[in-house]
């Protein structure tokens, strides 16, 4: 071991904080970039050279104001077209939390990018322009966030300054959206009236809307309770990598590396290894050179078993009385991402947890209109950016749960075997 750089081991205040990943959706017109710019500026997460570069570019384009969208639109093609195309990840921290923003485009032709950003989010932030009220776009964003089971949703009613901070307008949008949300799976909803430009209710409480008694956006982001979103009951440990040192010092060591996808694992626990169904007990759980007493999501650990059972990558460790049923018939919602449409009888590669197999499209049950929630059963294919309910048959059993129960063991990606490109994202309804 090299000499430590310092005798005392230290960390800054941010090291021990919680993390919140949230996804934003919207277009420049909704004021999304202004809002992100304000969150970054007010939390002092924009550096002078970044701001100067953006100011210089804005000036050279003849704008009257600094276009904060230039901060997030990182690719040349995006700056040229003035739109966000790809998902951009931004980072900021306040004394309470560290935040990762997945900034996604709002247009329907980039639905796949929004699905991507939402897949890892704890919270989704949808913006509406108070002057326009709910639009097809804002409804679509809420639908996608609920399909991806993002547990917390914030509807930010922006540009309140342009409607004289009218409570009546806010109430109307709030009521309309709450009614719409009852059709979706949204466990936690907050509707916040803001002005990103003027700063009302973003970080500081607005003096112009004393009729609003809820939290500011930042207060909500800092305090929304996300720890209980994880499943700490159903033990799911997909085996990722078998650790075998084959050295004199650790001659008999055999451990199973992986990230806990659900439940709490403890030494002494009885476990079952799937798909073989063999049972054993946890002999120990290692985190680098330390033995730990518990492992829970999303820790990456190495699990050792008491018996010398055959375990390899793609297997799953669960509890004998609480294990997923291995299944080759999968019923899932799929967001299709390729140019050529998804059709019945198509064969694809599927990656689910640490397991790779092939899948055959048995049936496309319906296509979901993400604007109206209408189920179109006539069209038997899914085009790019479309979402539908699909039946798959896989070459080997998957060890899965419904996506509504576990976002890790309930999700998969589809890969085109010829091009190697990721062409679909799946969320499992049922496996039989």
């Amino acid at each position, binding site marked *: 071991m090299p000499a430590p750089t310092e005798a005392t081991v230290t960390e800054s205040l941010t*090291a021990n904080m919680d993390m919140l990943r949230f996804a934003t959706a919207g277009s420049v017109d909704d004021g999304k970039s202004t809002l992100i710019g304000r969150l970054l500026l007010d939390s002092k997460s924009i550096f002078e050279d970044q701001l100067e570069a953006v100011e210089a570019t804005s000036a050279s384009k003849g704008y009257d104001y600094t276009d904060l969208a230039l901060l997030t639109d990182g690719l040349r093609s995006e700056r040229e077209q003035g739109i966000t195309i790809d998902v951009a990840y931004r980072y900021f921290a306040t004394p309470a939390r560290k935040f990762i923003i997945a900034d996604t485009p709002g247009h329907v032709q980039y639905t796949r990018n929004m699905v991507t950003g939402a897949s890892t989010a704890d919270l989704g932030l949808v913006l509406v322009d108070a002057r326009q009220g709910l639009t097809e776009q804002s409804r679509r964003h809420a639908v996608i966030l609920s399909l991806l089971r993002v547990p917390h949703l914030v509807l930010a009613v922006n540009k309140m300054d342009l409607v004289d901070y009218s409570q009546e307008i806010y109430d109307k949008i709030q009521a309309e959206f709450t009614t719409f949300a009852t059709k979706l799976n949204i466990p936690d909803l907050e509707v916040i009236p803001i002005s990103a430009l003027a700063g009302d209710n973003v970080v500081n409480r607005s003096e112009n809307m004393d009729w609003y008694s809820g939290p500011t956006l930042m207060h909500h982001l800092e305090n929304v309770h996300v720890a209980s979103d994880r499943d700490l009951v159903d033990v799911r440990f997909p085996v990722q990598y078998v650790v075998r040192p084959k050295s004199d010092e650790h001659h008999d060591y055999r451990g199973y590396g992986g990230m806990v996808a659900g439940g709490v694992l403890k030494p002494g626990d009885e476990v079952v290894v799937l798909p073989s169904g063999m049972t054993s007990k946890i002999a120990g759980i290692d985190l680098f050179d330390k033995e730990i007493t518990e492992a829970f999501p999303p820790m990456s650990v190495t699990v050792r078993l008491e018996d010398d059972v055959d375990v390899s990558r793609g297997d799953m460790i669960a509890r004998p009385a609480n294990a997923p049923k291995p299944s080759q018939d999968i019923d899932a919602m799929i967001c299709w991402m390729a140019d050529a449409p998804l059709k019945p009888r198509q064969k694809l590669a599927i990656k689910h947890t640490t397991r790779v197999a092939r899948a055959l499209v048995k049936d496309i049950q319906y296509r979901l209109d993400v604007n109206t929630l209408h189920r179109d059963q006539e069209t038997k294919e899914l085009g790019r950016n479309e979402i539908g309910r699909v039946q798959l048959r896989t070459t080997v059993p998957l060890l899965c749960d419904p996506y509504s129960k576990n976002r890790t063991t309930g*999700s998969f990606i589809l890969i085109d075997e010829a091009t190697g490109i990721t062409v679909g994202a799946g969320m499992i309804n049922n496996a039989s």
Partner: protein
Amino acid sequence: MTQTHADYRLSQLDQLEAESIHIFREVAAEFEKPVLMFSGGKDSIVMLRLAEKAFYPAKIPFPVLQIDTGLDFPEVLVTRDNWVNRLGVKLVVASIDDAIANGVVVDDGKTSRNRMQTAVLLNAIEENGFTAAFGGGRRDEEKARAKERVYSHRDEFGQWDPKMQRPELWSLYNGRLHAGEHMRIFPISNWTELDVWDYIGREGIEIPPIYFSHQRRVFERDGMLMSETPLNPLRQGEVVEERTVRFRTCGDISLTGCVESTASTIPEIIAEVSIAKLTERGATRGDDRFSEAAMEDRKKEGYF
């Protein structure tokens, strides 16, 4: 006593560590011949530490690749050797001087060594048949990087096509390749500069001493403080003086500037980084200053 959910809390730094370890294991399991690109800088040291943890008590199951620009800080090479020896990993060095001698790259006197690195790196990847190369890039560093995937696909020419990136969902990574292609892997994509320092402090690991405050003979060029060295001859009007400085990044000695600083411990560096007004690359990296899309252009060609 029953434990409540709140007890099963993982700090953000622990979450980042868990995510990075997951990525290392995934790559080691799925790729035939991975390699870790090691510059000796703080980000690649954090990567090595994470790789050490991912496979412990086994050794890191892939080699480490360094591009010797001939313009590396000697202190950085010492730190590199200490790490490689302690972990017992294989070190592959690809040298720009050798590449020039062998005709792999042409030194036309105009191209910077930073630019030549790309050709030497791609050549080393091809010659060794590496299919995945870990890099220490972080998304908070630069806005083109903010859009790059953890698994970043490179074609047979080593090029990155930002418009053709594969969607990356949940923690399901797609490592499919055709012959001749390779994947760049960025396991610390979600870390910020502050996280890297926090982790170095928490782990108590060795980093090159040039990151800490020291006396150095420097001169000013393009608003940056550059090291006096025979590798970087003075231009007219440049005056050398001794200042108390430290480096925020470890690049090529002719392009990497230092900042005036008295921070000589990790907590002092963390305090300094917390209130810094310039990004680390904007402040001290000549290679990123050429244009707004300097990084995007170099990345497309196959840069780190």
